[in-house]
Protein backbone atom coordinates (compact mmCIF):
# COMPACT_ATOMS: atom_id res chain seq x y z
CA UNK A 1 0.00 0.00 0.00
CA UNK A 2 1.47 3.39 -0.99
CA UNK A 3 1.55 6.39 1.36
CA UNK A 4 -1.28 7.92 -0.63
CA UNK A 5 -3.59 5.00 0.06
CA UNK A 6 -5.62 4.10 3.12
CA UNK A 7 -7.52 0.97 4.08
CA UNK A 8 -11.21 1.25 3.19
CA UNK A 9 -14.01 -1.02 4.40
CA UNK A 10 -17.56 -1.71 3.26
CA UNK A 11 -19.03 1.01 5.50
CA UNK A 12 -16.83 3.64 3.90
CA UNK A 13 -17.66 2.24 0.47
CA UNK A 14 -21.39 2.55 1.19
CA UNK A 15 -20.98 6.15 2.27
CA UNK A 16 -18.82 7.06 -0.75
CA UNK A 17 -21.27 5.33 -3.14
CA UNK A 18 -24.18 7.28 -1.61
CA UNK A 19 -22.26 10.57 -1.92
CA UNK A 20 -21.37 9.66 -5.51
CA UNK A 21 -25.06 9.23 -6.38
CA UNK A 22 -25.93 12.59 -4.79
CA UNK A 23 -23.26 14.42 -6.81
CA UNK A 24 -24.26 12.55 -9.95
CA UNK A 25 -27.93 13.57 -9.51
CA UNK A 26 -26.89 17.17 -8.89
CA UNK A 27 -24.81 17.04 -12.07
CA UNK A 28 -27.77 15.73 -14.08
CA UNK A 29 -30.04 18.40 -12.61
CA UNK A 30 -27.69 21.30 -13.31
CA UNK A 31 -27.03 19.91 -16.80
CA UNK A 32 -30.67 20.67 -17.72
CA UNK A 33 -30.21 24.40 -17.03
CA UNK A 34 -29.45 26.64 -19.98
CA UNK A 35 -27.44 29.30 -18.18
CA UNK A 36 -23.98 29.98 -19.67
CA UNK A 37 -21.86 28.20 -17.07
CA UNK A 38 -24.38 25.62 -15.85
CA UNK A 39 -22.52 22.90 -17.77
CA UNK A 40 -19.29 23.77 -15.97
CA UNK A 41 -21.02 23.39 -12.60
CA UNK A 42 -22.60 20.12 -13.78
CA UNK A 43 -19.18 18.83 -14.83
CA UNK A 44 -17.72 19.91 -11.47
CA UNK A 45 -20.32 17.77 -9.71
CA UNK A 46 -19.65 14.91 -12.13
CA UNK A 47 -15.96 15.04 -11.18
CA UNK A 48 -16.86 14.74 -7.49
CA UNK A 49 -19.28 11.89 -8.26
CA UNK A 50 -16.66 9.99 -10.26
CA UNK A 51 -14.04 10.38 -7.52
CA UNK A 52 -16.48 9.18 -4.83
CA UNK A 53 -17.62 6.24 -6.96
CA UNK A 54 -13.99 5.25 -7.64
CA UNK A 55 -13.24 5.34 -3.91
CA UNK A 56 -16.24 3.07 -3.25
CA UNK A 57 -15.18 0.59 -5.95
CA UNK A 58 -11.58 0.52 -4.71
CA UNK A 59 -12.69 -0.02 -1.09
CA UNK A 60 -14.94 -2.91 -2.11
CA UNK A 61 -12.64 -4.58 -4.62
CA UNK A 62 -9.18 -3.80 -3.23
CA UNK A 63 -9.83 -2.91 0.43
CA UNK A 64 -8.04 0.43 0.01
CA UNK A 65 -8.56 3.80 -1.64
CA UNK A 66 -6.53 6.77 -2.85
CA UNK A 67 -6.17 9.74 -0.49
CA UNK A 68 -3.75 12.10 -2.26
CA UNK A 69 -4.72 15.56 -3.43
CA UNK A 70 -4.16 14.72 -7.07
CA UNK A 71 -6.99 12.35 -7.94
CA UNK A 72 -5.43 11.43 -11.25
CA UNK A 73 -3.14 9.12 -9.26
CA UNK A 74 -6.34 7.28 -8.24
CA UNK A 75 -6.68 6.08 -11.84
CA UNK A 76 -3.63 3.85 -11.24
CA UNK A 77 -5.29 2.23 -8.23
CA UNK A 78 -8.66 1.88 -9.99
CA UNK A 79 -6.82 0.23 -12.90
CA UNK A 80 -5.93 -2.65 -10.57
CA UNK A 81 -9.60 -3.62 -10.09
CA UNK A 82 -10.42 -6.86 -11.91
CA UNK A 83 -11.81 -7.53 -14.41
CA UNK A 84 -12.69 -4.04 -15.70
CA UNK A 85 -9.97 -1.91 -14.09
CA UNK A 86 -8.45 -0.46 -17.28
CA UNK A 87 -11.87 0.65 -18.59
CA UNK A 88 -12.86 2.09 -15.19
CA UNK A 89 -9.53 3.94 -15.00
CA UNK A 90 -10.15 5.31 -18.47
CA UNK A 91 -13.62 6.56 -17.43
CA UNK A 92 -12.20 8.28 -14.34
CA UNK A 93 -9.35 9.77 -16.39
CA UNK A 94 -11.83 11.16 -18.94
CA UNK A 95 -13.88 12.86 -16.22
CA UNK A 96 -10.83 14.24 -14.39
CA UNK A 97 -9.35 15.52 -17.65
CA UNK A 98 -12.04 18.17 -17.83
CA UNK A 99 -11.61 19.39 -14.24
CA UNK A 100 -9.13 22.25 -14.71
CA UNK A 101 -10.81 23.56 -17.82
CA UNK A 102 -14.33 23.68 -16.32
CA UNK A 103 -13.19 25.07 -12.98
CA UNK A 104 -10.62 27.66 -13.91
CA UNK A 105 -10.76 28.64 -17.56
CA UNK A 106 -13.93 30.73 -17.62
CA UNK A 107 -14.82 29.03 -20.91
CA UNK A 108 -18.32 27.47 -21.09
CA UNK A 109 -18.32 23.68 -21.48
CA UNK A 110 -20.10 22.52 -24.65
CA UNK A 111 -23.06 20.15 -24.31
CA UNK A 112 -21.47 17.22 -26.20
CA UNK A 113 -18.43 17.23 -23.91
CA UNK A 114 -20.58 17.36 -20.78
CA UNK A 115 -22.68 14.41 -22.06
CA UNK A 116 -19.56 12.32 -22.57
CA UNK A 117 -18.39 13.08 -19.02
CA UNK A 118 -21.81 12.26 -17.59
CA UNK A 119 -21.82 8.89 -19.38
CA UNK A 120 -18.45 7.99 -17.86
CA UNK A 121 -19.64 9.19 -14.45
CA UNK A 122 -22.83 7.12 -14.73
CA UNK A 123 -20.84 3.98 -15.46
CA UNK A 124 -18.67 4.51 -12.38
CA UNK A 125 -21.57 5.34 -10.05
CA UNK A 126 -23.67 2.43 -11.35
CA UNK A 127 -20.79 0.01 -10.84
CA UNK A 128 -20.13 1.33 -7.32
CA UNK A 129 -23.75 0.66 -6.37
CA UNK A 130 -23.84 -2.73 -8.09
CA UNK A 131 -20.64 -3.82 -6.38
CA UNK A 132 -22.02 -2.64 -3.06
CA UNK A 133 -25.22 -4.67 -3.57
CA UNK A 134 -23.24 -7.77 -4.54
CA UNK A 135 -21.04 -7.35 -1.49
CA UNK A 136 -24.15 -6.95 0.65
CA UNK A 137 -25.65 -10.17 -0.76
CA UNK A 138 -22.43 -12.05 -0.06
CA UNK A 139 -22.33 -10.58 3.43
CA UNK A 140 -25.94 -11.65 4.12
CA UNK A 141 -25.22 -15.11 2.66
CA UNK A 142 -22.28 -15.62 4.97
CA UNK A 143 -24.47 -14.73 8.01
CA UNK A 144 -27.00 -17.49 7.29
Amino acid at each position, binding site marked *: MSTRERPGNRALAAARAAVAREYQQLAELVATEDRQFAHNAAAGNAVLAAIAASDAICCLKLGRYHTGE*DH*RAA*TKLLGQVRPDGPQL*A*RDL*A*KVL*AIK*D*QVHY*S*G*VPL*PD*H*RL*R*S*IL*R*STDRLVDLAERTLTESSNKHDGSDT
Partner: protein
Amino acid sequence: MDWSEPATAVMSAGTAAVLRALAGSDGSFAIREVARLAGISSSRAHQVVTNLAAHGIVIVDSRRGSRLVRLNDDHVATEHAVALATLRTRVIEQIRKELSGWKLPAVHASLYGSAARGDGSTDSDLDILVIHEPLSSATEQEEWDDQLAQSAEMIHTWTGNWASWFQVTEAELSQMATSNHSLIAEWRRDAITLVGPSLAALLRKRS
Protein backbone atom coordinates in the same frame (compact mmCIF):
# COMPACT_ATOMS: atom_id res chain seq x y z
CA MET B 1 10.26 14.71 -14.52
CA ASP B 2 11.56 18.13 -13.49
CA TRP B 3 10.60 20.26 -16.50
CA SER B 4 12.91 23.12 -15.60
CA GLU B 5 15.84 20.74 -16.18
CA PRO B 6 14.89 17.05 -16.58
CA ALA B 7 18.52 15.92 -16.59
CA THR B 8 18.92 16.98 -12.94
CA ALA B 9 17.60 13.54 -12.03
CA VAL B 10 21.17 12.35 -12.73
CA MET B 11 23.45 15.37 -13.33
CA SER B 12 23.79 19.02 -12.35
CA ALA B 13 21.98 21.68 -14.37
CA GLY B 14 25.36 23.21 -15.30
CA THR B 15 26.68 19.90 -16.63
CA ALA B 16 23.54 19.41 -18.69
CA ALA B 17 23.80 22.93 -20.11
CA VAL B 18 27.47 22.44 -21.10
CA LEU B 19 26.73 19.08 -22.71
CA ARG B 20 23.88 20.60 -24.74
CA ALA B 21 26.11 23.47 -25.82
CA LEU B 22 28.91 21.17 -26.96
CA ALA B 23 26.57 18.62 -28.54
CA GLY B 24 25.08 21.32 -30.73
CA SER B 25 28.26 21.67 -32.80
CA ASP B 26 31.23 19.67 -34.09
CA GLY B 27 33.68 22.45 -33.28
CA SER B 28 35.85 23.36 -30.32
CA PHE B 29 35.12 26.32 -28.06
CA ALA B 30 36.90 28.49 -25.58
CA ILE B 31 35.53 28.21 -22.03
CA ARG B 32 34.03 31.69 -22.29
CA GLU B 33 32.18 30.66 -25.44
CA VAL B 34 30.95 27.44 -23.79
CA ALA B 35 29.64 29.54 -20.89
CA ARG B 36 27.82 31.87 -23.28
CA LEU B 37 26.23 28.99 -25.23
CA ALA B 38 25.26 27.18 -22.03
CA GLY B 39 23.93 30.33 -20.37
CA ILE B 40 26.09 29.92 -17.25
CA SER B 41 29.00 31.86 -15.74
CA SER B 42 32.56 31.33 -17.00
CA SER B 43 33.69 30.07 -13.59
CA ARG B 44 30.87 27.51 -13.51
CA ALA B 45 31.65 26.44 -17.09
CA HIS B 46 35.31 26.01 -16.12
CA GLN B 47 34.30 23.88 -13.13
CA VAL B 48 32.00 21.66 -15.26
CA VAL B 49 34.53 21.29 -18.08
CA THR B 50 37.27 20.33 -15.60
CA ASN B 51 35.02 17.64 -14.16
CA LEU B 52 33.91 16.31 -17.57
CA ALA B 53 37.51 16.33 -18.78
CA ALA B 54 38.55 14.30 -15.73
CA HIS B 55 36.01 11.68 -16.85
CA GLY B 56 37.21 11.93 -20.45
CA ILE B 57 33.81 13.07 -21.77
CA VAL B 58 35.27 16.35 -23.04
CA ILE B 59 38.73 16.95 -24.48
CA VAL B 60 40.58 20.14 -23.64
CA ASP B 61 43.22 21.22 -26.19
CA SER B 62 45.70 23.65 -24.67
CA ARG B 63 47.56 25.22 -27.55
CA ARG B 64 49.09 28.60 -28.18
CA GLY B 65 47.94 29.79 -24.79
CA SER B 66 44.24 29.06 -25.34
CA ARG B 67 42.14 26.18 -24.02
CA LEU B 68 39.64 24.81 -26.51
CA VAL B 69 36.95 22.37 -25.42
CA ARG B 70 35.16 19.75 -27.48
CA LEU B 71 33.01 16.71 -26.82
CA ASN B 72 34.72 13.31 -26.96
CA ASP B 73 32.23 11.50 -29.20
CA ASP B 74 34.14 8.22 -28.85
CA HIS B 75 33.71 8.06 -25.07
CA VAL B 76 31.22 5.32 -24.10
CA ALA B 77 29.31 7.69 -21.81
CA THR B 78 29.03 10.66 -24.18
CA GLU B 79 26.03 9.49 -26.19
CA HIS B 80 24.09 8.65 -23.00
CA ALA B 81 25.10 11.85 -21.20
CA VAL B 82 24.01 13.97 -24.18
CA ALA B 83 20.77 11.98 -24.43
CA LEU B 84 20.01 12.86 -20.79
CA ALA B 85 21.00 16.50 -21.27
CA THR B 86 18.60 16.81 -24.22
CA LEU B 87 15.80 14.89 -22.50
CA ARG B 88 13.29 17.74 -22.58
CA THR B 89 13.55 18.16 -26.35
CA ARG B 90 13.32 14.42 -26.88
CA VAL B 91 10.27 14.03 -24.63
CA ILE B 92 8.53 16.87 -26.48
CA GLU B 93 9.30 15.01 -29.72
CA GLN B 94 7.85 11.80 -28.27
CA ILE B 95 4.65 13.61 -27.22
CA ARG B 96 4.51 15.13 -30.71
CA LYS B 97 4.60 11.64 -32.25
CA GLU B 98 1.96 10.32 -29.84
CA LEU B 99 -0.48 13.14 -30.63
CA SER B 100 0.21 12.96 -34.37
CA GLY B 101 -0.92 9.33 -34.32
CA TRP B 102 -4.45 10.05 -33.11
CA LYS B 103 -7.19 8.30 -35.05
CA LEU B 104 -9.33 11.43 -34.71
CA PRO B 105 -6.72 14.06 -35.58
CA ALA B 106 -6.37 17.39 -33.84
CA VAL B 107 -6.34 20.58 -35.91
CA HIS B 108 -3.63 21.85 -33.58
CA ALA B 109 -1.96 20.85 -30.33
CA SER B 110 0.64 22.74 -28.34
CA LEU B 111 2.43 22.56 -25.05
CA TYR B 112 2.00 25.64 -22.87
CA GLY B 113 2.34 26.58 -19.20
CA SER B 114 5.35 25.80 -17.03
CA ALA B 115 6.56 22.83 -19.11
CA ALA B 116 6.71 25.01 -22.21
CA ARG B 117 8.44 27.84 -20.35
CA GLY B 118 10.90 25.39 -18.82
CA ASP B 119 10.13 26.47 -15.26
CA GLY B 120 8.07 23.48 -14.17
CA SER B 121 8.94 20.94 -11.50
CA THR B 122 8.39 17.23 -10.87
CA ASP B 123 4.83 18.08 -9.73
CA SER B 124 3.95 20.18 -12.77
CA ASP B 125 1.21 19.15 -15.16
CA LEU B 126 1.96 19.19 -18.84
CA ASP B 127 -0.60 21.72 -20.08
CA ILE B 128 -1.62 20.85 -23.60
CA LEU B 129 -3.94 22.93 -25.74
CA VAL B 130 -5.88 20.84 -28.26
CA ILE B 131 -7.91 22.46 -31.02
CA HIS B 132 -10.23 20.06 -32.80
CA GLU B 133 -12.99 19.84 -35.37
CA PRO B 134 -16.52 19.77 -33.89
CA LEU B 135 -17.34 16.18 -32.90
CA SER B 136 -20.38 14.96 -34.76
CA SER B 137 -21.83 12.31 -32.45
CA ALA B 138 -21.77 10.94 -28.92
CA THR B 139 -19.70 7.99 -30.16
CA GLU B 140 -17.14 10.28 -31.74
CA GLN B 141 -16.94 12.32 -28.53
CA GLU B 142 -16.32 9.13 -26.52
CA GLU B 143 -13.63 8.02 -28.99
CA TRP B 144 -12.04 11.45 -28.75
CA ASP B 145 -12.06 11.40 -24.93
CA ASP B 146 -10.67 7.85 -25.01
CA GLN B 147 -7.70 8.79 -27.14
CA LEU B 148 -6.87 11.73 -24.90
CA ALA B 149 -7.09 9.55 -21.78
CA GLN B 150 -4.87 6.95 -23.44
CA SER B 151 -2.27 9.54 -24.44
CA ALA B 152 -2.35 11.07 -20.94
CA GLU B 153 -1.59 7.64 -19.54
CA MET B 154 1.35 7.21 -21.94
CA ILE B 155 2.71 10.68 -21.11
CA HIS B 156 2.49 9.92 -17.40
CA THR B 157 4.34 6.64 -17.93
CA TRP B 158 7.11 8.40 -19.89
CA THR B 159 7.54 11.43 -17.64
CA GLY B 160 5.79 10.95 -14.30
CA ASN B 161 3.82 14.15 -15.08
CA TRP B 162 0.10 14.30 -15.81
CA ALA B 163 -1.22 15.84 -18.99
CA SER B 164 -3.84 18.54 -18.46
CA TRP B 165 -5.82 19.08 -21.65
CA PHE B 166 -7.46 22.31 -22.69
CA GLN B 167 -9.81 21.42 -25.54
CA VAL B 168 -11.55 23.85 -27.83
CA THR B 169 -12.91 23.90 -31.35
CA GLU B 170 -11.72 26.57 -33.77
CA ALA B 171 -14.98 28.45 -33.20
CA GLU B 172 -14.45 28.37 -29.43
CA LEU B 173 -10.86 29.55 -29.90
CA SER B 174 -12.18 32.39 -31.99
CA GLN B 175 -14.64 33.36 -29.23
CA MET B 176 -11.83 33.31 -26.68
CA ALA B 177 -9.72 35.56 -28.89
CA THR B 178 -12.64 37.95 -29.43
CA SER B 179 -13.29 38.19 -25.70
CA ASN B 180 -9.55 38.73 -25.11
CA HIS B 181 -9.29 35.71 -22.81
CA SER B 182 -6.07 35.82 -20.78
CA LEU B 183 -5.04 32.35 -21.96
CA ILE B 184 -4.74 33.59 -25.55
CA ALA B 185 -1.87 35.89 -24.58
CA GLU B 186 -0.20 33.08 -22.64
CA TRP B 187 -0.54 30.71 -25.60
CA ARG B 188 0.83 33.31 -28.01
CA ARG B 189 3.85 33.81 -25.75
CA ASP B 190 4.71 30.26 -24.64
CA ALA B 191 3.07 27.63 -26.82
CA ILE B 192 5.32 25.02 -28.43
CA THR B 193 3.49 23.54 -31.40
CA LEU B 194 3.11 19.76 -31.27
CA VAL B 195 0.59 19.15 -34.06
CA GLY B 196 -0.66 21.19 -37.00
CA PRO B 197 -0.06 24.84 -37.88
CA SER B 198 1.17 27.26 -35.24
CA LEU B 199 -1.36 28.93 -32.98
CA ALA B 200 -0.35 32.30 -34.41
CA ALA B 201 -1.27 31.04 -37.88
CA LEU B 202 -4.66 29.77 -36.65
CA LEU B 203 -5.40 33.06 -34.93
CA ARG B 204 -4.38 34.98 -38.06
CA LYS B 205 -6.72 32.79 -40.11
CA ARG B 206 -9.71 33.81 -38.02
CA SER B 207 -8.95 37.54 -38.19
